[in-house]
């Protein structure tokens, strides 16, 4: 189900907000002032899907105002259970998976175009709520939205994107910290990963164990994981105490050593910029995907070459793969074809 909050706009296609006619090259709608060169989409606010065919569990006809079946009591699907975003230049899928009762992952996407209609920047942020904290779903959404907006402004303003990424992490941290309730023992917390594609550069920033990969379309070129997890397992491997296999077999493997939240202490974001030499895709994801497909090579095999031309199909297929293999966690997959191109939207012919 595509999120209804998607503001899909573009030059010369009419204003998406008010419907007024627009001309190619218009930066803003003459009628309502809407920014025509920006597409902004992401995980929606909490809510329940309308249920035209009754309760998903028992078929009962009445759903109460809290989203529960009045017959069997089952909670009806929430809008966040599955979020699908299919934009020109980037696509994302976020799914509750099979074992969790709600989707605590969030994503936020921003796409800008230049007045000629060519894509200028793509911003993708994925955050994964820490499920033992309070309101992890609110934390991830607040963080992703706040960071994406900072990155968007920076990309449009031509600011240094590594600096901007650090600012975006700071804004995300502030947004999560602001959610802390009176009981600070389990203050809201989440991970963070962002990628900004601007010109030839891909700037990646992260805190925690959500990842960004470079997947090369050319068989001869190398694919790689751009991020390095802030996790117990990674720390054990880096310090030489355990092999990768041993570390990931340990129940503590996923324990985070860094995160965003009021109880996170000093947060030092990692930032890296890569400049790929050929075509491919930037993949931004939560651990719900990479738990099942950790290697850059196996992800490349699963996603390419399709992902370059049909990023939404690729994101949906990778999500389905993670769910088929157990769906033990929320799964969020964002695919950005590189170099930027706006001919990828699957709903367009």
């Amino acid at each position, binding site marked *: 189900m595509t999120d209804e909050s998607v503001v899909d706009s573009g030059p010369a296609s009419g204003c998406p907000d008010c419907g007024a006619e627009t001309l190619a090259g218009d930066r803003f709608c003459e009628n309502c002032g809407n920014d025509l060169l920006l597409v902004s989409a992401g995980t929606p606010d909490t809510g329940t899907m309308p249920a035209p065919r009754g309760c998903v569990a028992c078929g009962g006809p009445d759903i109460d105002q809290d989203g529960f079946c009045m017959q069997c009591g*089952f909670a009806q699907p929430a809008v966040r259970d599955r979020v699908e975003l299919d934009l020109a230049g980037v696509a994302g899928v976020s799914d509750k998976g099979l074992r969790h009762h709600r989707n605590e992952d969030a994503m936020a996407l921003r796409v800008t175009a230049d007045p000629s209609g060519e894509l200028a920047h793509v911003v993708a942020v994925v955050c994964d709520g820490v*499920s033992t904290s309070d309101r992890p779903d609110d934390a991830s959404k607040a963080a992703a939205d706040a960071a994406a907006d900072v990155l968007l402004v920076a990309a449009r303003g031509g600011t240094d994107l590594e600096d901007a990424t650090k600012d975006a992490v700071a804004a995300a941290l502030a947004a999560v910290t602001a959610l802390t309730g009176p009981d600070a023992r389990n203050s809201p917390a989440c991970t963070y990963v962002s990628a900004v594609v601007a010109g030839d550069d891909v700037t990646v920033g992260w805190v925690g164990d959500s990842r960004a990969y470079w997947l090369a379309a050319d068989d001869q070129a190398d694919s790689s994981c751009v991020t390095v997890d802030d996790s117990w397992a990674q720390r054990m491997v880096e310090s030489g105490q355990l092999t990768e296999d041993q570390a990931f077999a340990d129940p503590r493997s996923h324990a985070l050593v860094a995160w965003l939240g009021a109880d996170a202490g000093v947060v030092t974001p990692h930032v890296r910029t890569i400049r790929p030499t050929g075509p491919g895709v930037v993949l931004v994801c939560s651990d719900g995907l990479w738990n099942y497909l950790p290697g850059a090579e196996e992800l490349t095999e699963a996603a390419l070459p399709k992902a370059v031309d049909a990023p939404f199909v690729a994101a949906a297929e990778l999500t389905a793969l993670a769910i088929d293999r157990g769906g033990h966690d929320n799964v969020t997959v964002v695919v950005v074809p590189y170099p930027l191109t706006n001919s990828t939207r699957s709903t367009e012919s």
Partner: protein
Amino acid sequence: MSAHPNFRVDIYQNEYLHQGATEVNAIVTVTSGGVTESSGGGSGSAAAEVIIVDCSGSMDYPRGKMIAARQACAAAVDALRDGVAFAVIAGTDQARLVYPQQGGLVAADVRTRAAAKSAINGLKAGGGTAIGRWLNLANQLFLPYQNTIRHAILLTDGRNEHESPAALAATLAECDGKFVCDCRGVGTDWEVEELRRVSTALLGTVDIIADPAGLEEDFRKMTDAAMSKAVADVVLRLWTPQGASVKFVKLVAPEVVDLTGRRMAKSAQVGDYPTGSWGEESRDYHVCVEVKPAGVGDVMLAGRISLVLTGTGGEDVILGQGLAKATWTDDMVLSTRINPEVAHYTGQAELAGVIQEGLEARKSGDLDTATAKLGRAVALATKSGNTDTAELLSKVVDIDDPVTGTVRLKAKVSDVDTMTLDTRSTKTSRVRKSS
């Protein structure tokens, strides 16, 4: 135009269940504010009050008892607000309307209060005890007073000797939901269990007034409390999902009263439990529902708890509601979290149970059981910070270690101390909120 008080409903629970688990526990804290807008210009809500005083022969022994009872009744009459409909019943093996002599209830004012006190002054002891007949008369008197706070005070000093237990039980069933009755036992010749049965059935309190000199103050307090009630005939309505069963519904604060058997089924999935009248106050209920197990990741509404105003002859009015949920998870960190409110009141209900069982065992000479039960009670009271109950326990047992509950039965215990502990065993402490 009638105004209803606001009821705030807060739910405390660990909604996370491990795979296969089916029991959902929730503590429901209900807090009622005052009525924001007066319904008829007078101060407070319409109320009816019946004072029932035991006038059996034993009330003359010791001599001061009847005198104290008369003073207490007079104090209760003085505490009645102007306009409250009231009557006074003298109870023996019969029930006699002492005031007003013409029958029915009469509105309190300067003149009627004086006339009532004059009638009370003439009360004399003589005859038996048949509590059911007293309640029957009160029930008839309350009949014309619907949509009104209906409250009775019952004072007795002896056992219900002049009617059968079955007759009393039939009367209690008849009076269920018709009025609220607070019961007081004076002296030590009455039965705690018997009077508790009356107060529980009629949603009131029970207490011991060991010294007749304390009656007057207690009667004034009870009447003041009754006058402060703003709304009558409130039920706790529990919706449960199809296929679920209600394991229990208990009032757990300010005292433990099991309401499970009081369910009035509205449908297979909805039942009403009586809560009586409410003023500005807060009560806690423990609701336990057994649901059908669901899969990991599933979320279910296990109970919708509403406070509903009924008996107005019109539509039911929902005063407030809360949701108890069940979420199945394979995350042990979540499913093994102990909810402090549920744990506290589970302990308080056990405390009331072990005190009553311990005293029963002591009475029947099973001293090992008595020591074990009362020791457990000491440990529970200590752990939960229920200092009032701990204090009462210390008059019945010598405490070697309050934490582990190592105790020795006292060789000599007064009837007053035993009966006080028994009567107040159901009083609970509330959860101490962590900072």
